[in-house]
């Protein structure tokens, strides 16, 4: 055994130990890197999952809100129908008796004609004035009675007793017909009314299973509203050209009909109310506030579809009515 032997052995042992330690270190570093990598991946995954959860929660909240909204609409619709039935009978009496009284007054005037003519001027004028005033009042009762009657009729549409006909029909002609009706209706009411009309009706929409009369009501409502809004803006802005665009397209298993107007738009704060019965921005006597509420019922409850709105106040409004190609089995008759 040489003198340096133990030291050499010790050094060798140390070197081995160092090499082991170095290997361990390398492994540990690799592991740390892996761990880091894993943590990062984990972090990213958690972020993704989190984002998905947040989105799902939002979706859930939106669904819940729309469910609450649907429920409110349903109960309001029932209430509306109930009120309408209760009002219709007395209202019929008011209208009938007002009309009768007009006839009776005309007869009375005829019976008394000679007598009145022979009265002193002052008394005669008084009598004639009274006749005229009563006649005018009766005309007012008639006019407002008819107005109330048309409101009640619209209210009752919420609660038709029997199902209307369910048919397989081409959708575009319904939209086109609604457009014609709305345009001529608006022209008939106001001869100075005019509007630029664009139609983009896609052929791939084809035929759908639906309740055509009710869909017609929806389109008519949406188009009339759009025309009203665009025309209203044209009265407020010089040189503004009111325009309406009706388009249809196929979107997977759905078909969509869009009505876009360049009118006054819907202010954000009104957005949640527009589908509620009796909500209207039109002056008294011009709108019943039932059009959109009825359309909502028809699209969602009757057709299992949707009615969505997008609007930029002062710029435009787009209503999108979508419905499945085939009706869900349970919808329809209420």
């Amino acid at each position: 055994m040489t003198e340096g032997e133990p030291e050499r052995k010790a050094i060798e042992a140390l070197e081995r130990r160092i090499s082991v330690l170095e290997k361990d270190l390398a492994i540990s570093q690799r592991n740390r890197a892996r761990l880091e990598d894993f943590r990062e991946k984990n972090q990213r995954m958690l972020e993704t999952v989190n984002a998905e959860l947040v989105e799902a929660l939002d979706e859930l909240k939106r669904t819940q809100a729309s469910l609450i909204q649907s429920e409110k609409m349903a109960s309001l619709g029932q209430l509306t129908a109930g009120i309408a039935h209760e009002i219709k009978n007395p209202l019929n009496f008011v209208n009938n008796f007002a009309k009768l009284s007009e006839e009776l007054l005309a007869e009375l005037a005829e019976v008394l004609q000679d007598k009145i003519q022979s009265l002193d001027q002052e008394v005669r004028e008084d009598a004639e004035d009274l006749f005229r005033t009563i006649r005018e009042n009766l005309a007012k009762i008639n006019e407002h009675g008819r107005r109330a009657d048309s409101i009640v009729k619209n209210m009752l549409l919420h609660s038709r007793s029997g199902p209307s006909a369910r048919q397989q029909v081409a959708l575009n002609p319904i939209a086109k017909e609604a457009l014609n009706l709305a345009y001529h209706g608006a022209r008939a009411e106001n001869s100075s009314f005019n509007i630029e009309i664009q139609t983009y009706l896609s052929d791939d929409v084809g035929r759908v299973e639906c309740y055509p009369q009710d869909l017609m009501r929806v389109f008519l409502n949406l188009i009339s509203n759009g025309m009203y809004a665009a025309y209203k803006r044209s009265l407020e802005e010089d040189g503004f050209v009111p325009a309406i665009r009706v388009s249809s397209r196929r979107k997977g298993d759905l078909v969509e009909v869009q009505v876009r107007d360049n009118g006054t738009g819907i202010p954000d704060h009104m957005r949640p109310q527009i589908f509620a019965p009796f909500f209207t921005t039109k002056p008294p006597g011009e709108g019943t506030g039932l059009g959109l509420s009825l359309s909502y019922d028809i699209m969602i409850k009757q057709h299992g579809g949707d009615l969505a709105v997008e609007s930029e106040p002062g710029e435009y409004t787009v209503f999108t009515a979508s419905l499945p190609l085939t009706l869900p089995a349970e919808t329809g008759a209420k």
Partner: protein
Amino acid sequence: MTTRVLMVDDERDARELFRQNFRREIRKGLYEFNFAQSGQEALEILRDGTPPEILALLSDINMPGMSGMELLAEGCKTWPRVGVFMITAYGDAATEGQAKAQGASNFFSKPIDFPRLKEDLARAIWVAA
């Protein structure tokens, strides 16, 4: 000849409405109106058979107790010569079809179109006579 018409409606003011609308015809003696406030009361009047015989029955459909439809079925069965006119606030096709199937001569929805009612009534009575 005076035609006796039986009017059935649970609303009391319906009488006044008919009486005023038919005032000229009543004055001329063309029509005589009897009124009943329920289906039961109407059947009693029909059974009573006081001359002149009742030739037309005008009935509301929605009434408490015996409905207009039940009265219609009973009336057509027992007095086939009496023309039955049904009146309802709910002018839907299903109800109209049901009324006609049960033997109603005609169907009117409220508010009643009186000129049309008068024409149809005159025709029904002419056919019956």
